C-alpha cells in the first residue's frame, strides 16, 4: 500500500503472516473475561424463563422495553460490516482491503445477538416457532401481514447472507492457515473450513463471481432489514411511531452506529495486533469521512422528523414530542444530540480528528447516542398513549440490565475468539491489492477507473501508479 510496492510486497506479506501467527495472550484473556459475561447473559435469561416475563420492568402501557431497544441497537450495529464492506467492494475502493473482514465479522456476531432479543422478549419463548412457516398439524400458518413476520423473513435472509458473505472470502484464508499449520487438531480445523481450497484459477474465478454477486445482493438486503425493523414501529397507529421517515431514518442510524463499532474495533485491532502498516492512517481518514457524513445525515433526519411533528400540532403526536424535548426524556434526548451530532462534527471535520484514537472515542459516544435514540423511540411513545388515563413510565429491572450487559459480553467473546482463530485482515485480498499496486499501468487501469466510495479519497492503487 505504499510507494515501493514491488520491493516491499514480499516483506509486507511476511509481516502480515507473522502478525497473524503470533499468539496474543491478551486475546485469550479477553475471551475469558467476556466469557464470564456470557454466563451472566444466560443466567438472567434462564431466570426470566423460569419465573416469567414479569421479572422485567415492562408494564402497561410500556409493553416493549430494553429487549426491543437492544434488538434495534444490535441489528443496527450489524450494518457495520456487510453493508459497508459491500459498498466498498462494489465501488472497488482499494482501501477496503484491510477493513472488510473485521467489518463482516461484526455483522455476523451482532446479528446473531440482535436476532436473539425478540425471542428473549417473548412472553412464551418456548413456543416461538409458531412464527415460523412450517406445515403444522392444523395447517395454520403465520400471519404474513404482521411486520414481525417480515422481520423474521428479513433477518433470516440477512443472517444467512452475511454468514455466507463472511465465509466465502474466508475460504482461501482458511487454506492459508491450513497449509501453514503443523499437522494436528489445528490443521484439521482449518482443513474443514477451507473445504479443500487449493487456489486454482477455476476456484478463484468462481469465487470472484460469487463475491461480486453477493456484494451487490447484500446491499438491498441490509437496507430492507433495517427498514423492516423500523416498520415494527411505523406500521402502528401509535403517536410517535407512525412516520414515513422511519425506514430511511433507521437505515441511516444503523449505518452510523455500525461505523462507530467498526472504528472502535479497528482502533483496537490496530493497536492490539500492531497492524499499523495495514490499517493505515488513510483507512481511518476515509472511514472518518464516511462517519461524519452519516452523522450529518442522521442529524438532518432527526430534525426533519421532529419538525414535522412539531409543526403539525397534532395533539397526540405533540404529547410525545413534548416529553421528548422538554419533559421527562429531555436529558437523554439532548445528550443524544450532543454525542451523535455536535461532537462527531466538531472532531471529525478536521484531519487530526480522523486518527484512530479520536475516531474510536467519537465512536464510543455515538454508540451511547444511538442506544439512546432507540430508547427514545420505544419508551416515550409507549408511555404517552392517546388516552391520558393510561400514561405510564418504565424502569428496567436487573434482569434486563443483566441481559443487556451479558449481550455485550457475548459479542466480545465471539469477536475475540474469531480474531484468535482466523485472519482478521483478509490475507488474499491484501495480496491482491499489493499485486494491483505493483502491476503498474495494467492494474492502474482497473483501480483508477473505479469510482471511489462516497466521500473517500481516490484508491491508492490508482494514485500510486
Amino acid at each position, binding site marked *: 500500500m505504499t510507494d515501493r510496492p514491488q520491493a516491499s510486497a514480499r516483506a509486507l506479506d511476511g509481516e502480515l503472516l507473522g502478525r497473524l501467527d503470533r499468539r496474543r495472550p491478551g486475546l485469550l484473556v479477553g475471551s475469558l473475561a467476556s466469557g464470564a459475561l456470557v454466563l451472566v447473559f444466560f443466567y438472567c435469561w434462564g431466570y426470566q424463563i423460569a419465573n416469567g416475563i*414479569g421479572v422485567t420492568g415492562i408494564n*402497561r402501557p410500556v*409493553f416493549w422495553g430494553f429487549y426491543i431497544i437492544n434488538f434495534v441497537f444490535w441489528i443496527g450495529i450489524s450494518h457495520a460490516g456487510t453493508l459497508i464492506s459491500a459498498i466498498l467492494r462494489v465501488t472497488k475502493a482499494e482501501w477496503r482491503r484491510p477493513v472488510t473482514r473485521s467489518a463482516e465479522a461484526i455483522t455476523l456476531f451482532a446479528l446473531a445477538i440482535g436476532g436473539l432479543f425478540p425471542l428473549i422478549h417473548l*412472553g412464551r419463548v418456548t413456543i416461538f416457532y409458531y412464527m415460523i412457516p412450517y406445515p403444522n398439524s392444523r395447517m395454520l400458518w403465520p400471519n404474513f401481514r404482521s411486520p414481525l413476520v417480515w422481520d423474521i423473513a428479513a433477518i433470516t435472509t440477512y443472517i444467512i447472507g452475511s454468514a455466507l458473505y463472511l465465509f466465502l472470502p474466508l475460504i482461501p484464508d482458511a487454506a492459508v492457515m491450513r497449509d501453514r499449520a503443523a499437522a494436528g487438531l489445528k490443521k484439521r480445523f482449518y482443513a474443514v473450513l477451507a473445504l479443500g481450497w487449493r487456489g486454482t484459477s477455476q476456484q478463484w474465478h468462481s469465487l470472484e463471481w460469487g463475491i461480486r454477486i453477493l456484494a451487490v445482493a447484500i446491499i438491498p438486503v441490509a437496507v430492507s432489514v433495517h427498514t423492516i425493523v423500523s416498520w415494527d414501529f411505523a406500521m402502528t397507529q401509535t403517536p410517535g411511531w407512525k412516520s414515513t421517515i422511519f425506514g430511511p431514518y433507521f437505515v441511516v442510524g444503523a449505518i452510523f452506529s455500525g461505523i462507530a463499532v467498526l472504528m472502535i474495533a479497528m482502533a483496537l485491532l490496530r493497536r492490539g495486533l500492531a497492524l499499523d502498516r495495514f490499517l493505515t492512517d488513510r483507512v481511518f481518514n476515509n472511514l472518518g469521512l464516511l462517519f461524519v457524513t452519516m452523522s450529518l445525515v442522521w442529524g438532518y433526519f432527526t430534525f426533519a422528523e421532529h419538525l414535522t411533528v412539531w409543526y403539525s400540532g397534532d395533539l397526540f403526536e405533540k404529547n410525545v414530542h413534548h416529553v421528548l424535548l422538554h419533559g421527562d426524556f429531555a436529558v437523554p434526548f439532548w445528550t443524544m444530540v450532543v454525542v451523535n451530532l455536535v461532537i462527531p462534527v466538531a472532531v471529525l471535520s478536521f484531519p487530526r480528528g480522523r486518527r484512530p484514537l479520536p475516531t474510536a472515542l467519537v465512536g464510543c459516544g455515538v454508540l451511547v447516542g444511538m442506544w439512546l435514540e432507540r430508547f427514545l423511540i420505544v419508551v416515550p411513545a409507549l408511555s404517552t398513549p392517546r388516552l391520558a388515563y393510561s400514561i405510564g413510565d418504565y424502569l428496567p429491572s436487573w434482569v434486563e440490565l443483566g441481559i443487556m450487559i451479558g449481550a455485550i459480553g457475548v459479542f466480545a467473546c465471539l469477536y475475540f475468539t474469531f480474531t484468535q482463530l482466523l485472519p482478521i485482515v483478509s490475507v488474499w485480498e491484501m495480496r491482491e491489492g499489493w499485486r494491483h499496486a505493483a502491476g503498474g499501468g495494467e492494474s492502474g487501469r482497473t483501480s483508477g477507473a473505479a469510482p471511489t466510495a462516497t466521500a473517500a479519497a481516490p484508491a491508492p492503487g490508482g494514485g500510486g501508479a
Partner: protein
Amino acid sequence: MTRWGMAIDLDRCTGCEACVVACAAENNIQTVGEEQAREGRAMHWLRIERYYEGEFPNVRTRFMPVLCQQCGAAPCEPVCPVYATYRNPEGLNAMVYSRCIGTRFCANNCPYTVRVFNWFDAEFPAPLDSQLNPDVSVRPGGVMEKCTFCVQRIQAGKDEAAQEEREVADGEIKTACQQSCPTKAIAFGDLEDPDSEVSRWAESPRAFSLLGDLDTRPGVVYLSGTEWREPAE
C-alpha cells in the same frame, strides 16, 4: 348476521366500579396484588377512567368505562404474527390464548390501551380458586388478554336458543358489567338488528365513538349529553 355491540351511557355512569368487579369475577381475571399494580400491571379488562374538570372547589368528575372496543377495523389484529387475535364472524376481536406467544405487538397498536398481559402465571390461592368461573379458561403467564364481551355468555345464550329452536332475543344475553350496573348505563346486543336496545341507543344524538377520528369502527358506542372533550391533556 350478528354484530355484537355495546352502548354505554356516560350520563348515567356514577363511577361505582361494580362493573369492574363483576368483570373480574366473571372472567377469572388474575388479581396481581398491590406491588404489581403499582408497577402498572393491574389486569382489569374494564377500567373506569376519571377526569376532573374545573378549579377547586367547583370540580366535576367525569367517568368513562373503557373496555375493548371490539373494533370493526382493529389495529391489533394484522400485527399479530401468529393469528392469536383475529376477528370472528360475529364482530368480536377474539383471542386464541393457546396461540399467543406474547410479542405484545397488539397491545402497542391498540389506541385505547385496553389489552392486558399476564406477566406471571395466574395464582388463585384458596379459597379464591373455588369461585373460578368454569366456563372461562385461566390464562397462563406470557399471554395477552382483554375483554371478550363475555363470549361465554354469548355462547350459552346461543346454545339455549338453539335448543329451543328460536332466535336469540334482544336483551337475553347480558354481559357481566351490564348485569351489575346499578344505573343501567350499559346496553348490549346485536348492532345489526335495528330494533335492539343497543341499536336504538347508538342512534341517539348523544352517541359518539371513542377516538372516532381513527376510524377503527368500534363496537362500543358512548352516549353523552355534554360535549365530551377527548381526554388528552
